[in-house]
């Protein structure tokens, strides 16, 4: 398709006053955008109508020089076949450089115009990826507990076919094993029936939901929109998306033999065992009972985290005892009572019923006795040692472990790493992986969902709660993190909505979060591939398999369009229609670098669109200003930064290169999970190369910034500017 390009400069929001628009247009003209129109308020209905008229007349590539690409997105959208490139004159020039002199401001404006223009000239409209054959539209739900059943119902309600696989002989999960449910309705005081039969009946009664009980999964192959799943009963089913709602495993009380005398007396039981007793037996014989909270929880030797449900469960179980025998002495020995939201009402109700809460310190109480039990604990509220005697039973409130195998990420293998050492590190990491599986993924990257900590599947916790690092496979309920029944219900619904979306995205041929709707995808110029496997290894989402000839085999519906593979590829054969090594490289090369004696240094800052760009916009909006020597270039993710860009910049005489992206590490905020970390590893490897070229490694700076951290951003910008002033001009200037 031939491209008809037109540029538009907005003169509103102070742009027209601060910049000479004719000069801006001229600068863009050098990079292929010859035609230009101006408007006083481009985002106004009249301005948009002017552009629309051009589009109707056949223009299909538009350079819009106005405000940031993050605002006015609806106004400046003309369908996926019309390329739009935005130049952020308002935020990055007029506002951010309001303290700079006229000349510097104009130079910045011209550079941004050139960069936008060259990008537009080199971009092509996307051709959405289409799976071969029919897109599988069923949602496969693995696990028939609270989360799984609610996911199945929600997906069915949204119009999907559902396949529900449960390993036990009947649906219900832990809900089916409970005597009663904690209060679910205002005023949250009375225990309620679990109504599990009603829920199971609803699920089994729907034609749209096909239930397999007593069944597990032998193998999962394929990609979103096209999963083929082999079941343990020999059947094969096709699904478009998968929800893993495999629930939790009680923490093994055998581990608490030493600390809490588990096993020494049959009347020392766990909360799970007590629940069973409450369901099947009679509790009226209990005259005195103690619950020990945090039994193996929030303890570095056991489960380091809070399971967030055991306090609530103990309150509920204490109420069981009080209901059977109101005169019973019921004690709860706790570290902190953690009963968030409505559970607080349950705590209060237990207190009203006369349950006594005794606060202990970090040491576990000692429990002894062959018949009746005695519990001795430090009582921090009395500041004394106290004894509870003649106890009929002690219940250990143990925590939850996700029913999911632990996967340890192999350390990132990057440029310059000794291959033998890397191999060994990978082997060591792999040895820590748990070797059982639920989904048995036939992925090159392993059979299980990558986990972050404690075997909980890895996800960008804040923004994309249900996602896993295998696109199209979502987690819901207690496998994701410890939670209560009411939360697991909501979780199931949330994951179902995600599953429905990913199937739709596979049909349309676009990305899911965080680049929802993006119709580009990485294309490989395979003739030049050297089979180094960096793309396959570094893709955070396991999107790239390997074919029989050991070539990378991309699965575009698994792809999130982060560009990490593009950043990884040493042969630079991976590109998107509107984002490639060449495009960004050309943007860098289009920057005009003044001669050394002009004393106008230049630094390119590669800005991640997810958090770093918004914070720059916010800073500009708040009236913050920065050096006119910086040039920001948007990138999809720091992981997409190819090292050749650094070389491009430095060899052109640019004095420094910054990479601003999301937080990495354990509490990462990287929207592509590993991108920011990968970038950091790659950059750490190039300082050697720089030294060889007699360049200071300080010229390259990777920084992390959160979406609301304007002050941090300003500090980073300031210190980067200082560094550049200190190291002085790039010796390659003018070559």
């Amino acid at each position: 398709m031939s491209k008809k390009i037109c540029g538009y400069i907005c003169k509103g929001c102070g742009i027209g006053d601060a910049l000479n628009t004719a000069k801006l247009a001229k600068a863009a003209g050098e990079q292929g955008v010859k035609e230009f129109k101006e408007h006083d308020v481009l985002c106004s209905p009249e301005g948009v109508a002017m552009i629309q008229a051009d589009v109707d007349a056949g223009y299909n590539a538009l350079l819009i020089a106005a405000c940031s690409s993050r605002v006015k997105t609806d106004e400046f959208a003309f369908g996926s076949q019309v390329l739009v490139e935005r130049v952020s004159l308002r935020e990055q020039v007029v506002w951010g450089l309001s303290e700079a002199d006229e000349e510097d401001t104009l130079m910045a404006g011209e550079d941004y115009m050139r960069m936008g223009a060259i990008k537009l000239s080199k971009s092509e409209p996307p051709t959405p990826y289409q799976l071969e054959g029919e897109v599988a539209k069923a949602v496969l739900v693995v696990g028939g507990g609270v989360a799984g059943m609610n996911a199945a119902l929600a997906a069915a309600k949204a119009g999907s076919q559902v396949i529900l696989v449960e390993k036990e002989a009947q649906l219900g999960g832990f809900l089916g094993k409970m005597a009663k449910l904690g209060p679910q309705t205002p005023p949250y005081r009375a225990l309620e029936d679990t109504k599990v039969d009603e829920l199971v009946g609803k699920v089994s009664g729907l034609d749209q939901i096909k239930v397999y009980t007593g069944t597990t999964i032998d193998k999962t192959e394929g990609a979103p929109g096209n999963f083929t799943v082999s079941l343990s009963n020999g059947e094969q089913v096709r699904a478009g998306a998968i929800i893993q709602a495999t629930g939790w495993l009680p923490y093994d009380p055998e581990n608490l033999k030493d600390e809490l005398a588990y096993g020494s007396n049959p009347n020392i039981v766990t909360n799970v065992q007590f629940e069973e007793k409450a369901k099947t037996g009679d509790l009226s014989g209990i005259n005195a009972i103690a619950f020990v909270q945090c039994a193996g929880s929030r303890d570095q030797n056991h489960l380091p985290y809070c399971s967030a449900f055991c306090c609530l469960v103990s309150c509920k179980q204490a109420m069981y005892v009080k209901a059977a025998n109101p005169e019973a002495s019921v004690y709860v020995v706790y570290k902190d009572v953690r009963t968030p939201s409505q559970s607080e009402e349950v705590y209060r109700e237990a207190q009203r019923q006369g349950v006594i809460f005794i606060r202990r310190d970090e040491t576990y109480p000692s429990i002894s006795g062959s018949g009746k039990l005695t519990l001795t604990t430090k009582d921090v509220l009395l500041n004394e040692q106290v004894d509870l005697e003649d106890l009929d039973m002690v219940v250990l409130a143990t925590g939850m472990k996700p029913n999911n195998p632990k996967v340890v990420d192999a350390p990132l293998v990057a440029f310059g790493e000794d291959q033998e050492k890397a191999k060994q590190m990978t082997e060591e990491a792999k040895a820590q992986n748990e070797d059982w599986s639920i989904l048995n993924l036939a992925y090159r990257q392993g059979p299980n969902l990558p986990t972050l900590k404690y075997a909980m599947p890895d996800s960008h916790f804040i923004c994309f709660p249900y996602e896993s690092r295998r696109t199209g496979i979502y987690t819901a309920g207690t496998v994701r993190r410890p939670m209560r029944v009411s939360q697991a219900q909501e979780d199931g619904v949330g994951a179902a909505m995600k599953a429905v979306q990913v199937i739709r995205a596979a049909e349309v041929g676009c990305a899911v979060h965080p680049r929802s709707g993006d119709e580009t995808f990485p294309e490989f110029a395979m003739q030049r591939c050297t089979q180094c496997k960096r793309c396959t290894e570094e893709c955070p989402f396991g999107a790239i398999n390997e074919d029989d000839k050991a070539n990378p085999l991309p699965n575009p519906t698994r792809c999130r369009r982060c560009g990490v593979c593009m950043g990884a590829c040493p042969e630079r054969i991976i590109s998107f229609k509107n984002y490639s090594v060449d495009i960004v490289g050309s943007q860098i090369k289009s920057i005009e670098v003044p001669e050394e004696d002009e004393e106008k240094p230049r630094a390119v800052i590669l800005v991640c669109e997810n958090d770093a760009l918004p914070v720059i916009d916010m800073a500009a909006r708040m009236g913050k200003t920065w050096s006119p020597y910086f040039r920001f270039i948007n990138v999809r993710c720091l992981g997409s930064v190819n090292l050749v860009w650094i070389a491009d910049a430095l060899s052109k005489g640019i004095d420094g290169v910054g990479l601003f992206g999301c937080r990495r590490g354990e509490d990462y905020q990287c929207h592509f999970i590993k991108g920011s970390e990968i970038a950091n590893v790659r950059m750490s490897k190039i300082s050697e190369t720089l030294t060889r070229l007699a360049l200071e490694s300080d010229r390259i700076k990777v920084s992390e910034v959160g979406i609301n951290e304007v002050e941090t951003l300003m500090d980073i910008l300031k210190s980067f500017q200082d560094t550049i002033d200190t190291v002085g001009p790039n010796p390659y200037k003018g070559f």
Partner: protein
Amino acid sequence: MDYQQDFAKEVYEKVDSGAEIKVCMQCGVCASTCPLREKMKYSPRKLWTLIRAGRRQEVLNCPDIMLCTSCYTCKVRCPRGIPVIDVMHGLAHYALEKGITPREETKKFGEAFWDSIYETGRVDEATVPIKYCLKDGMIAGLKKSLSMLDIGMALMKAKRLTPKLFIPPNFFIPGSHKIKGLKDLQKMLDKAKAMGARKEG
């Protein structure tokens, strides 16, 4: 054996507002908020723990329960909505009823206060303290009132106390200070007392 529930049940059932402390979550807001906290051995918070732990003697003999000045701060601030002040007074009443005087001075002051109301229908900043001091006898009473001189001066400065009150005939002529309809007030007070006794009984 700690945490026997007999005393806790006694408090829940017999003490005014006693059952309200069941929902105390031991946050300590009352303790950190009470202006008397430095004078107290325990605080409301810890008293509730002692009640739950079954420490009857310790609680009923504790002067803290008679130190409360009825400032209401705790009741306003308790996140669990416990009327802490009411329970403090409830405990004090309950102790007295059981023949225990947790704090002699408060008892005396309370009596002086009551007497003043009952006899004149009024309380004022002069008569009540004087009555209170004189409970110790003439000499000791004078000593005590002298020791409280600074408080008296401060009250005067704040115009809460006027020297006129000490000048005859106001002070020395009995009955000059009474309200109209004192008899009716006394009837009401008698009735209230009887009702209170019935409730605690």
